[in-house]
């Protein structure tokens, strides 16, 4: 575990990665200066599959020994649209971020799938990693991302009849004034 800078590489496993050519590793590190003190830093790739190839890329990693899907979450880039992405990856409003973990080689890989606002549908990787069941439901609940093929894509944290998806950037943060019991009302 040396302090090697994190690389943004093309997928060495599945030949279906849409990132053409070597991505710029300098501009897209995970953070600032490298340090071996930080977990997850030394060996982590970031891959940008397009939506159509997302499932097959995940399957490729699964076959390559990434036993566990450790995390899946959504990000809404509405007000930070022009973030740094490698060439050939057009930015879209939403991203699905998947962190895979290989226990045998102690490696992590992160997949970032771009999803346009007009068509918020990605394939569910439930059949590859059943552990994403709750995580995909959470991403659906919070961002409205549809995971096609998920066995039970319902709200998980918000009430069933809730309208809207709270972690979207255009979802207002409401404030409820604090009411004390017995406090005199406005005159």
């Amino acid at each position, binding site marked *: *575990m040396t302090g090697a800078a994190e690389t943004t590489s093309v997928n060495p496993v599945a030949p279906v990665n849409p990132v053409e050519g070597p991505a710029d590793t300098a501009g897209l*590190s*995970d*953070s*600032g*200066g*490298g*340090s071996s*003190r*930080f*977990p*997850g*830093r030394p060996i*982590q790739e970031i891959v940008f599959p397009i939506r159509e190839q997302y499932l097959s890329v995940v399957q490729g990693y*699964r076959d390559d020994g990434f*036993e*566990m*899907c*450790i*995390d899946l*979450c959504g*990000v*809404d880039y509405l*007000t*930070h649209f022009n*973030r*740094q992405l490698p060439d050939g990856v057009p930015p879209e409003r939403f991203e699905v*971020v998947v*962190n895979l973990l290989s*226990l*045998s080689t*102690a490696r*992590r890989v*992160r997949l970032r799938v771009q999803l346009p606002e007009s068509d918020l549908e990605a394939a569910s990787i*439930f*059949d*590859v*990693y*059943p*552990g*994403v*069941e*709750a*995580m995909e439901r*959470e991403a659906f609940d*919070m961002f409205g991302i549809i995971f096609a093929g998920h*066995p*039970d894509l319902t*709200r*998980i*944290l*918000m*009430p069933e009849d809730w309208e809207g998806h*709270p*972690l979207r950037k255009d979802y207002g*943060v409401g404030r409820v004034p604090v009411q004390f019991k017995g406090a005199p009302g406005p005159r």
Partner: protein
Amino acid sequence: MTDPTSTDPEDGADGADGADTSALPATEREAGAPNDTTIRASAREGESSGHPDTPQSPPISRDEYLKVGPGGEGIGLSAETSEGHQELTRRSTTDPGELRREVGAVLRLPEGVVIDPANIDVEQSDDNTMIINMGPQHPSTHGVLRLMFELDGETVLRTKPVIGYLHTGMEKTAEELTYVQGSTNVTRMDYLSPLHNELVLSLAVEALLGIELPPRADWIRMLMTELNRVSSHLMWMATNGMDLGSTSMMIYGFREREMVLAFFEKTTGLRMNHNFIRPGGTAADLPDGWEDDVTIICDTVLPRTDEYDELLTGQPLFRQRTESIGRLSAEEALALSLTGPILRSTGVPWDLRRSMPYLHYDQVDFDVIVGTYGDNFDRYSVRLNEIRESIRIIRQIVEKMPPGDYRVQDKKVTPPPRARIDESMEALIHHFKVFTEGFKVPEGEVYVAIESPRGELGCYLVSDGSSKPYRMHIRGPSFVNLQALPVMMRGGLLADAVSVCSSVDPVMGEVDR
């Protein structure tokens, strides 16, 4: 695997009274729960790769079915309806994948991978079974967890955890708070190990900032989080004992936890929700005489773990209620993304402190505790022995604690010392700026994970260059681990459901966030 030293949990757990289950053959332990055996057998025959079986060829092919005339004679069903001629496919022609989704819509059984979908008995679920609800207000659900059970007599068939009752939108709140305020927010997620939450956020922010901390800050963090692991596991021992009817264990567990919390109060000012570990270091240095306090905690808790052994480990009632209850195979645990003691109890020696070391865990000596059977007893043994290992780590930390600063001397993230504020206007402004505006963090994304008492606690942090996180996602181990409940409970008795739920150790604050 990075060759962690594995110790048999039963070696230590059995020590006091010499009852040794590891000597028993596996079959004998399984015999305790006859209901369990058949399910597990079929589960284990399924392949481990995480794929559902390819659909079995139905007994009657669709072509054969279509040959049947519309009069209803023959195999298929058909009827004249207001919509015209309708043909119904026989149940036996529904492929297993479809069946699984259909069944899952009511009560979810996510282990389609490990239990053959063709085995799902649809006919049975109509008449003979009953759906009952437990929670969200139930003392043994450890908070506001609601469980829906499908029961056949007293046997649990399917379970659905329903969560969200404690959802307060903390990830949304985090986007409104600066990085300085962030740890106040995350510390309330997993309220039994608040320092781990603070640590993972601080590590993520520091990774984006690219700052290096003085060694003492790291060692203080290790000391505090290891103590927190002890207190969290003690709390688990207490509540697990209570769920199984041992109120003595509850009292003892809380008694020992109180010592740790008293030290936390002395150091951080609060018993819980400390806001002690912050981006850039810690809030304060350790108090004078901390070595003695910590040594007393170690010297007290370690012999007390032997008392727990005497109280629980060898007790026949306790063993019958834990052994071979809620069994889980390593394949199932990996497929369901389980981490922490649950994963280790199935025999997978995965501990981030060992496998992907952070802070200075590569400089301390400890064993990764693994189980064998993945049942409730193994999860108990793993946690009990992890208390001992944590105490071992804490003793080494006390020896190795380096002198120096407890926070980074980077004016960008660190407020000036209190004494400077009285004498310098600039220091006052600086202090004011840090605590109102916060500091700007460079653009980028980072995923950082640490080993919390419940498993992998991750933080995915997105910064847009401002002083507030653009997105902060916490990967709560309890949230993911709850998915194990349907698998662990299937085929078990309803009376064991509480015990199984307890052995997962969910903290609802972290599940719902």
